[in-house]
């Protein structure tokens, strides 16, 4: 049903109805923004990247294969754009330490101040851990955990093989586990209690 609705909105957009594309933006703004934020670790830059991803999707909508998932196609555009941004960032050698977002959990759906504070701490820790990964590894982790994509879907998106993705995720988990050794356990405990 969701896929059919996406296809309908895509067709209407291609027929000249911009409002139909607005429906797609509203539906996927959170997914696109979250991917950009997890990759770039900066709210302002993530918003710019997410907006650019939607503009690129709009401009290239004719190339979209309507038989495939629109969400996956959109995430693919977003991830490519974020990787480009990270490469440019590296090339320009920007060593400015971006402060972590002060209240990411406040933008999530978790109710209550205590839960929000704990979620905030966990979210900051996750972001800190992700920042230590290379862009390719980070992307594999984000697509796997936040979007629940299979290895095959991620490989298709990133134009590589399933085994390559599996290997990236394996190494990424190893690196994260090593990183975790140096983190204070207090910030992890609330998340671990239920495990």
């Amino acid at each position, binding site marked *: 049903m969701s896929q059919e609705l996406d296809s309908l909105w895509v067709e209407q957009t291609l027929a000249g109805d911009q409002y139909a594309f607005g429906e797609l933006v509203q539906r996927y703004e959170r997914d696109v923004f979250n991917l950009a934020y997890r990759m770039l670790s900066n709210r302002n830059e993530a918003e710019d990247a997410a907006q650019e991803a939607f503009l690129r999707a709009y*401009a290239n909508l004719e190339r979209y294969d309507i038989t495939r998932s629109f969400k996956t196609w959109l995430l693919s555009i977003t991830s490519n754009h974020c990787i480009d941004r990270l490469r440019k960032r590296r090339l320009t050698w920007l060593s400015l330490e971006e402060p972590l977002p002060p209240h990411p959990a406040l933008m999530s759906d978790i109710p209550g101040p205590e839960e929000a504070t704990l979620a905030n701490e966990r979210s900051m820790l996750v972001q800190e*851990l992700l920042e230590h990964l290379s862009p390719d590894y980070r992307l594999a982790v984000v697509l796997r955990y936040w979007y629940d994509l299979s290895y095959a879907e991620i490989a298709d998106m990133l134009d590589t093989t399933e085994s390559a993705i599996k290997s990236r995720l394996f190494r990424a988990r190893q690196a994260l586990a090593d990183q975790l050794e140096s983190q204070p356990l207090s910030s992890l405990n609330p998340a671990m209690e239920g495990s």
Partner: protein
Amino acid sequence: MVNELNTQHSMNNALDHELSAAELDALNTQLEASPEATEYWRRLRRIDQLLRNAPLIRPLPGFSDRVMVAIASMPLSAFANKQFGLGAALGLVAAAVLTVPLLSVAAILLVNAIIDPGTMNGLLQVVTAGTSYVIDVVSDLGSGLHTLVTETPMVPALISTVIPVSMLWVWMIWYFSGSPRLFTRQ
């Protein structure tokens, strides 16, 4: 070392729920035998849980509106651009295909006309007759005007006054009606 790597691969597969019951039992046996592997497995599970529980971050309110404003302010619709490009290309191809044979036919006819004396003679006669007719018309018009000016001198004066006054009136009507453009861009 190889054994350790295999254990880590097994752990990775366990996190993805890709181990059979037998493989899971084997992993548990390995973990019981090695405190280091157990500690490593504990950390991997922590990472896994941490990532699974991390929320989706939302953009600030009004994000979709800002995207749509950006799309609306794009200079031209991307689709229109592409359609124009394709249309222009097809038009140029069609023009080239049609122009070449038409020019060839015209050139052949012109050469034939120049070579044939009868045709050239007829053509010259038509040109001469046409020229003399135009001269006669201009001459009649000149003599008519001359007669008008000499017999009724008020008419030219009236015409030379009415024309500028009419132009002034037209301009004033146009100006006070908000200077509408004659040709508007779509």
